[in-house]
């Protein structure tokens, strides 16, 4: 029984990390139709900004989070303004362009900061575990879980309750007509891209105490995030949340039953079958086009 509860928590923790990485991707993809293959590199940059703040300014991870968000959002804004905005009418080219941006960012970090892995300390107040008998939950993982849910709620509120969200939804539905109503679509796009990048940066900062911080750390993460977005349904943040929960728990379940390698294969096969029979994903966005 304890093993099962431990494993359910492991799945939830994995899901929270997936959600953090995938949310930004889902927003950018859903809003702009841009498949951002540089997303993993934004995650990586988030971890490196955290590292820089920690080792040069002595700033703790929690205090660094807002700065990381703003910095990576600014980088995302710059990338959108300089490159991505020129390609909105050529969606396939954005794949190539963002892939290239990813390679360039990775190699810039490798040359500028160095290829070696970096150490980022986790927050001291969140070290240790909370245990009930044999059920042992890591405090930091609980924090990441709560934080991810918080970010999800904030994102939902941003899209559903604010003027910016209303404008964004209008632009998603029909760019030309919303421009007729005086919405500056390109500004909305730039801010959306920046927000998605900022979320990726936050994800990078949050996972840095759990993993190895290297220039290539984003490559693996972005693959999982794409799976989540595809399963969830394009453009739906609720779909993304549900899908990350499902992918996380399924991975944990297969890993417990068999092992991580087979677990991974199991999840991929399950996703292939799922997409075969429901290509639009779990909760596709309903948009009149």
């Amino acid at each position, binding site marked *: 029984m304890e093993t099962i509860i431990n*494993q359910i928590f492991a799945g939830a923790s994995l899901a929270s990390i997936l959600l953090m990485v995938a949310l930004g991707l889902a927003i950018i993809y859903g809003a702009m139709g841009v498949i951002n293959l540089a997303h993993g590199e934004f995650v990586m940059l988030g971890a490196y900004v955290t590292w820089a703040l920690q080792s040069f300014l002595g700033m703790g991870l929690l205090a660094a989070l807002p700065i990381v968000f703003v910095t990576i959002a600014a980088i995302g804004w710059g990338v959108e303004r300089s490159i991505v905005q020129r390609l909105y009418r050529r969606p396939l080219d954005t794949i190539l362009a963002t892939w290239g941006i990813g390679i360039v960012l990775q190699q810039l970090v490798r040359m500028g900061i160095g290829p070696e892995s970096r150490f980022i300390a986790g927050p001291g107040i969140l070290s240790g575990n909370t245990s009930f008998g044999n059920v042992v939950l890591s405090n930091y993982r609980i924090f990441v879980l709560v934080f991810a849910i918080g970010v999800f709620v904030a994102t939902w509120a941003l899209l559903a309750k604010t003027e910016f969200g209303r404008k964004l939804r209008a632009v998603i539905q029909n760019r030309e007509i919303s421009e007729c109503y005086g919405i500056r679509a390109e500004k909305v796009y730039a801010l959306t891209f920046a927000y998605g990048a900022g979320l990726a940066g936050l994800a990078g900062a949050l996972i840095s105490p759990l993993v190895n911080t290297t220039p290539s750390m984003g490559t693996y993460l972005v693959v999982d995030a794409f799976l989540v977005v595809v399963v969830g349904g394009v453009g739906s943040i609720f779909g993304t949340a549900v899908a990350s929960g499902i992918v996380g728990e399924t991975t944990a379940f297969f890993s417990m039953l068999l092992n991580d390698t087979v677990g991974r294969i199991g999840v991929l096969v399950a996703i292939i079958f799922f997409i075969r029979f429901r290509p639009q994903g779990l909760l596709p966005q309903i948009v009149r086009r």
Partner: protein
Amino acid sequence: MKRRSFLTRLGAASTLGAIGGLSAPAILTGTGRAWAQSGEIPVGLLFSLTGEVAVVERTLHDAAQLAIEEINAAGGINDRLLKVHVEDPASDPATYADRARRLFIRDNCVSVFGSYTSASRQAVLPVVEQRKGLYWYPTLYEGRECSRNIMYGGAVPNQQQQEFVPWLVKNFGGKFYLLGNNYVYPKEENNVCKMLLGQLGGEVLHEEYVPLGHSDFSSVINRIRATGPSVIFSTLVGDSDVAFARQYHAAGFDPEKMPVASLTRSEVEVAAIGGEAAAGHLSSAPYYMGYQSPENERFVEAYKARYGADQVTHFVSEAAYFQVYQFKAALEKLDPAAVTAEAIRDAAVGVTLKAPQGEILVDPNLHTHLWPKIARWKSDGQAEILVQSAERIAPEPYWAYPGETCTGEGLVRG
């Protein structure tokens, strides 16, 4: 059949060309000795400076480069300086093969130093055997290879394990949890470990492989908690090792009772893991940065002076460094006019050398006799050596495979 006759005719045509005194073959034979006349000895460095493997290979490149600079500063080998040709294979095995070809053919290198991963070494292997070159490979690896054109400077499984596993069983108990990445190296090491455990009466509680780059170990940690082993025997590499170590520490396990015993963890990984999480866990390797010997003090000092005080040396970069000196020792035995890669190889056999880890010897099977050491990591990121092997340990790349032996004549069966 048509294809064959075409090829025969092509062959005949080129032979005719050669007889006719065309210049192309003349250039080819001429450049074969070009370096002997120019007074410089061309060597290649084939370590990735870009891409994922650059994390480690940059340090190997730096260590080999340092040795070359030292040799040149001291006047070279037999009064000839080493001329370095650097290629960056960008972490891609196919590019390794391509760049190796370039180094051997275009640059006429008599030796190339390179590779960290087995995948890249195996990509270079057919090239170096075909070109009759010599490839110096500094990494510990899984054994089961016996090329006559590769000089293996790192440990093979028996060198790391034959003292380590009995010591672990004696001090912590025989219930092992085998954890590695899913590729050939961890599986071969675990075969050796299982063989030793069988002899010692230990048992394997669980054997598990995670994908390369895997970074979420919650499931593994839950399983470790449920099975309660006495030792976690780890062959995780790179990112996975760092992620596992951090999450293992965060899960609150006590290294005094259940240590992670790693064959792959070096100062590089420990720097990324952080001293606090790495402290108390164990490693077996021939070299640690903190090992006390005059040669090592000189090596570490020179390395830091050249590349920065925050840099670390580790068991693979040490081998990348001493292999250049093995190359030098071999070349010094040869007549400068008659240097070929194969002559260098034959001269290298039996060379002894004071390396930072101790006095090492090149075996006729081209692997190296090394000094394995069991160490415990400290919170300052350095290792404290607990057991130094009493004697130099001979390399046996086919230890777990009775009936197969790697000898000076290549692989012998039976």
